[in-house]
Every structure is written in structure tokens, then in C-alpha cells.
């Protein structure tokens, strides 16, 4: 190891390596380990990307998409920053607001990138345990004293639990004004209708609220990396200063624009995922397998990954070990295409039956 790499390794010693969800040898629909949208983007997006490939010699221009997105969200472009995936927002927050004197609050377990960017910045982390699979908002508030950032995924990954509008308002209004609450809504579209927290209305009221979202999940654009943040215009302006000028590439902008232009595809796929999640949770209840009730496109079940993998891997189906996500003894399963989920149900049914015999 060279002196430089030794120094780098020393500085990054507390930063965990990210382990992405694996795919096995099966078809694309068999990957239930990364919460991707298994039907992929709609025909309009595929067609738009094909046509746009001729223009990739030019630097991307984001204003048209920015305006389109702002209009669809009914906010101003100044309240909005687009990014190279939602993860880039996490890095920008850390670069802009955190250093070695900072404290951040995360849930435990937490989305790993939130902790990773905080550790890279040298910040201290306060971990607030998820209790019985749900957010402990009171404990989050109690931990906020002296903190610079609270990372708050809602729905939460890897449990799928959600906080209500009332809880979110209480959290933001209770923490110090100089503490930024980062509400990660990557899985928002999967929340059952009627239960979506009203958060956009809080933007004007609370300058210490930043909402981040992604087009990787319900919009099925994980491969092109496209996310965004919504917040107070003066904070957004600072984040924009830090962001690389062309961090969102031209194909991502075209894909995002085409997807937003035909939301019916997203609505259809989300409706199927919600129905598939309900079917899967009913099945788990029926056969007595413990799970965390989810409002996301995954369900986390209390089965050791090695056990579940022993019946799903032969079918080419991959799932996410809870050990990778801070939930040892559990397995996170993306709600996938209906035929894949039929195989998953059969395999779990056989596993449980064999264990009971």
C-alpha cells in the first residue's frame, strides 16, 4: 500500500463500503434486491432516449426539465435542484453543511448513504433506533439538540414505515432552526392513497426543511441517475453552487422529461406494486411470517437471508440480506413483477411448511 493509499484508507476508515443489491443469473425481473421498477420505463421514455442519443456531443441544458418538474410539483424553479440521482443530494448537503465539528441524527437502521456522507465529512452520528419497525419521532426530536442535520427517510428504508403529516410537522417545528431536516421521499409514490403526508405545504413555512426525491423508483429511471431536492431558495442556491455544473446528463434530462410527460405509465406500475404488496403482506399474515408493514415497494420479512436464499436463488431470484441494511435476521424483498412474486410466495410457503414439519 502506498503512502497515499494508506492516508486515504486511514481517513476513510469509518466509512462503510456500499454493497448494492445483487442480481443472480435469472432474467431482469428476478432481481428483488435493489427496489427497482421491474417493468422498466414506459415506451415514451425508451423512444425519447433513442432519439436523443444523436445529441450527446453537446453539454446538457437543464432549464427546460427544471421548469417542467417545478410546474408538475407546483413549486418555483428556485425551490428546486436536480441532481445525479438522489444520492448526490446527500453528498451536496454534507459538502455544504457538515464538517468534523458537526453532529447528524439518523435512524437505526438507516439508509446507508446518509451515514456515509456524514462520516466522509467527519461528522459525529447520533443513531435513534426504529422501535417495533416504526419511526420514534420523539426520540429524534430529543436527539436534535446541537445537530446540524437530521436524515429522515419517509417511507423509511429498510422498514417501509411512514411518519404522518402531523409527526413530520412536529419534528420540523420542534428541532432548532439551524438544524436541517432532510426528508427523503424516494418511495413516496408507493404510499397507499390517502396516507401521503402533505409536505410541500411545509416548504414555505420551514426554511430548515429539504425534501429529496428520485426518479429511480416509481419512474423507473435508476440507470440514468436523476433525483431532485426541494427547499428554501436560498439553501437551494448554495447547494447549486456546490453541485458540478453538468452533473445531470443529457439522456437523463430527456428521459425525465418524457416520463413526466406521460405519467400514466408510472401510475399503472405503482398501482400494480401496491396491489402486489397487499397480496404479499396478506400471504405473509396467512402463513404466520413476521414482516414490517410497508408503504414502499418492498417488504422486509423476518427470515434469515441464507434460508430465503436457499429457496429463491435456485430460481434465479435475488433478495437483500438484512445484514447489509442493519437488520440482521431479516430479508428485504422488492415487490416485483406478478409472476416473480408468485414464485416467491410459493418458495416461502414451502420453506415455512418444511420448517414446521
Amino acid at each position, binding site marked *: 500500500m502506498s503512502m497515499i493509499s494508506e492516508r486515504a484508507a486511514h481517513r476513510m476508515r469509518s466509512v462503510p463500503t456500499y454493497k448494492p443489491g445483487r442480481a443472480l443469473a435469472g432474467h431482469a425481473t428476478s432481481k428483488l434486491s435493489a427496489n427497482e421498477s421491474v417493468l422498466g420505463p*414506459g415506451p415514451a421514455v425508451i423512444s425519447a432516449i433513442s432519439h436523443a442519443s444523436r445529441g450527446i456531443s453537446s453539454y446538457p441544458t437543464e432549464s427546460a426539465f427544471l421548469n417542467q418538474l417545478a410546474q408538475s410539483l407546483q413549486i418555483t424553479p428556485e425551490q428546486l435542484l436536480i441532481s445525479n440521482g438522489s444520492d448526490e443530494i446527500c453528498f451536496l448537503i454534507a459538502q455544504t453543511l457538515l464538517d468534523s465539528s458537526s453532529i447528524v441524527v439518523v435512524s437505526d437502521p438507516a439508509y446507508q448513504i446518509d451515514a456515509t456522507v456524514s462520516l466522509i465529512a467527519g461528522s459525529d452520528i447520533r443513531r435513534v433506533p426504529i422501535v417495533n419497525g416504526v419511526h420514534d419521532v420523539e426520540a429524534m426530536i430529543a436527539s436534535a439538540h446541537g445537530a446540524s442535520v437530521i436524515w429522515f427517510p419517509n417511507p423509511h428504508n429498510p422498514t417501509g414505515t411512514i411518519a404522518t403529516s402531523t409527526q413530520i410537522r412536529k419534528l420540523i417545528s420542534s428541532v432548532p432552526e439551524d438544524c436541517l431536516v432532510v426528508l427523503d421521499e424516494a418511495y413516496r409514490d408507493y404510499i397507499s392513497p390517502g396516507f401521503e403526508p402533505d409536505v410541500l405545504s411545509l416548504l414555505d413555512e420551514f426554511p430548515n426543511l429539504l425534501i429529496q426525491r428520485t426518479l429511480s423508483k416509481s419512474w423507473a429511471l435508476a440507470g440514468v441517475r436523476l433525483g431532485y431536492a426541494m427547499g428554501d431558495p436560498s439553501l437551494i442556491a448554495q447547494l447549486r453552487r456546490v453541485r458540478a455544473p453538468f452533473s445531470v446528463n443529457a439522456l437523463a434530462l430527456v428521459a425525465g422529461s418524457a416520463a413526466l410527460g406521460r405519467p400514466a405509465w408510472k401510475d399503472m*406500475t405503482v398501482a400494480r406494486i401496491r396491489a402486489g404488496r397487499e397480496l404479499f403482506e396478506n400471504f405473509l399474515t396467512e402463513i404466520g411470517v413476521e414482516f414490517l408493514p410497508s408503504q414502499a415497494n418492498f417488504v422486509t420479512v423476518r427470515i434469515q437471508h441464507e434460508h430465503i436464499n436457499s429457496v429463491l436463488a435456485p430460481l434465479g431470484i435475488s433478495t437483500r440480506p438484512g445484514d447489509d441494511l442493519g437488520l440482521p435476521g431479516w430479508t428485504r424483498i422488492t415487490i416485483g413483477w406478478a409472476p416473480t*412474486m408468485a414464485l416467491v410466495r410459493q418458495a416461502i410457503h414451502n420453506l415455512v411448511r418444511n420448517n414446521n414439519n
Partner: protein
Amino acid sequence: MSVAQSSGLNLSQDLQRSIAVREVADPTAGFARVRLHWAGVCGSDLHVLRTGDWVSYWPAVLGHEGVGVVESCPGGELEIGTPVVVDSRVGCGQCSGCQTSPMLCDSLQWVGEVSPGTFQNVANFPVGSLVACPADIDMCTAVLAEPLAVALHAVALSGALPEHILILGFGPIGALVYSELRRQQPSAQIFVEEIHPDRIQLATAVGAHVVSPDSGLYPLVIDAAGYPGSFQHSLDAVNVGGTVTLVGIGHTTEIIRPQQIVEKSVQIHGSHGFTDELPDAVCLISESPEQYRWVISDAWSLDEFLGEVSNMLTQPTVGKAVLSL
């Protein structure tokens, strides 16, 4: 090879449904034993489950859309392990029509109705009724090959495709007809009439223009619904000199005005099943499975299906329902 056990969905003559195990004898020369992986549930299966129509043996094992893997083939025509799609047509093999295509048989019957079908996990089929698939085919999507062949046939019969086309109904056949029209004629404006809200959402999602009845006149109308009155509605909706293709099977007696057919110089095609499109359908699915997966909306094991059937008989699924075997 020994006698195999096959677990399947039995339909008794008094229309009771149950899961039962039956023995499947060793295949003889000219036949292959297939380990079925997936079966598709067709509207005609639901009709038979409701009525018992067309069945000539009891208890029956229905299902005519299926994909699986060859387990045994005494004649060696198919290699063990080859994925295959079932060609469900059973022609008499003796009439003059059969010399051209099983579809023109005077007494055409279907797997499931005349012999045990695909709602089971092991069955013997004539080698000539199996279409070999590429080894890496996505087996579940391949279960769409038979209904896709039906759609390809309907589109082929419709002749040169115009720029404006109306499809009646966006069930699985309507969806696959749409998919083929879009593939052949990317620039076409394809309109859909449908009343089921989730099917309207699906049609809109894939880029069809959902319209209400009496939205205008079209040079080509494809009736993929077969609801009472749909034939007359197709005649009302077609242009002078236009074409009406009927692929949905209507079971009711229709009152039509022949004058309209004459005065509009309408060409009418009845599109039943398919001729030689099944291998083409396999190729299309093999090359681009992602183009077709959205057509499948529901999937169950046989046990689950037993509990779901009564729902399906009253409320159709949005897209194709398939069974994991």
C-alpha cells in the same frame, strides 16, 4: 422414464373445481413429456369453467396456453431440456382444411377441451404441437406466445395498416394487438374503446388514445372484445371502404344491418386462432421480452388460483393472468 405424477386443476362435469394428482403415462413415439412451468388463463378457459362447453372428457384439465421444458421424447425429435410452447390446436388431420392449416379443420378442437391441458405441471403432447424456444427465453413471458400468435394473425388478416386504427377492448388480446400494431406501424395513431377503468389506465400508459364510443370513423376497426353489440358497433365505426377484423369471440346473437356492410363496402375478417404465427410469436418474445411483460398483470400458484377463480369469473383481471405450475 416411469409414469409421472401430475398435479393439476380438475373440472368435474358438475363444474366443481379441485386440485388433483393424476398419472401421466410414458410418452409414446411422436409424443413428448413436458414439465410445464407456466400456463396462461384465457377468456375461453373462464367460459368453460362457467359452462362446461366444448369439453369432451371428464374430469377435465383445462388450459391451452402453456410453456415448459421437455422431460422425455422417445422419438428424439426434441432434446431433453428444450423449452417449448404448446400449440393448442387439435385438428382431425383428415379433412381437406387440415391439409392447409389446423385452423381450417372442419372439427377443430383445443387442448384442454379434448385432452388434458396446461393447468397441470406434467403432460404429454404430440411433438408436432410443441414449438421449441431458445434456451435462454424468459419462460414466463413466453406463456404469452399463444395469445400473441392470435394477435399477429388478426393484424395480418387486416391487410395494409392505415394511420388511424380503432381497437375495441383492451383485455390481453386487445393489448397484444395494440403491441403488434405499434411494432409494425410506429407512426400510427391507435385508438382504444374500453370501459374497465384499470384497462383504460393500462391503455393510456402504453400510449394508446382512449376514446368514447362514436368518436369518429376509422379505416380499420379490430374488435378484440366481442361484447354484445360490438360487431354492429364496429360496422358503425368503420370508414367507407374500411376493414373490420373480429378476433374477440362474441357469444350472443347479433342483429346487424347488412345494408351497412354493402353500402360501406366493408371487408370483414373473422380471425380465429392463428395459422403459422406461433413460431414468430416465440421469436418476438425471445428478442424483446420487456415489450410484452406489462401484458401480464396477475400470477398465482394452482392452489391460489383455486381460490381466485370465482373472482375472475365475475371480475376480469386487468391484463393476462398466468399460473405458476
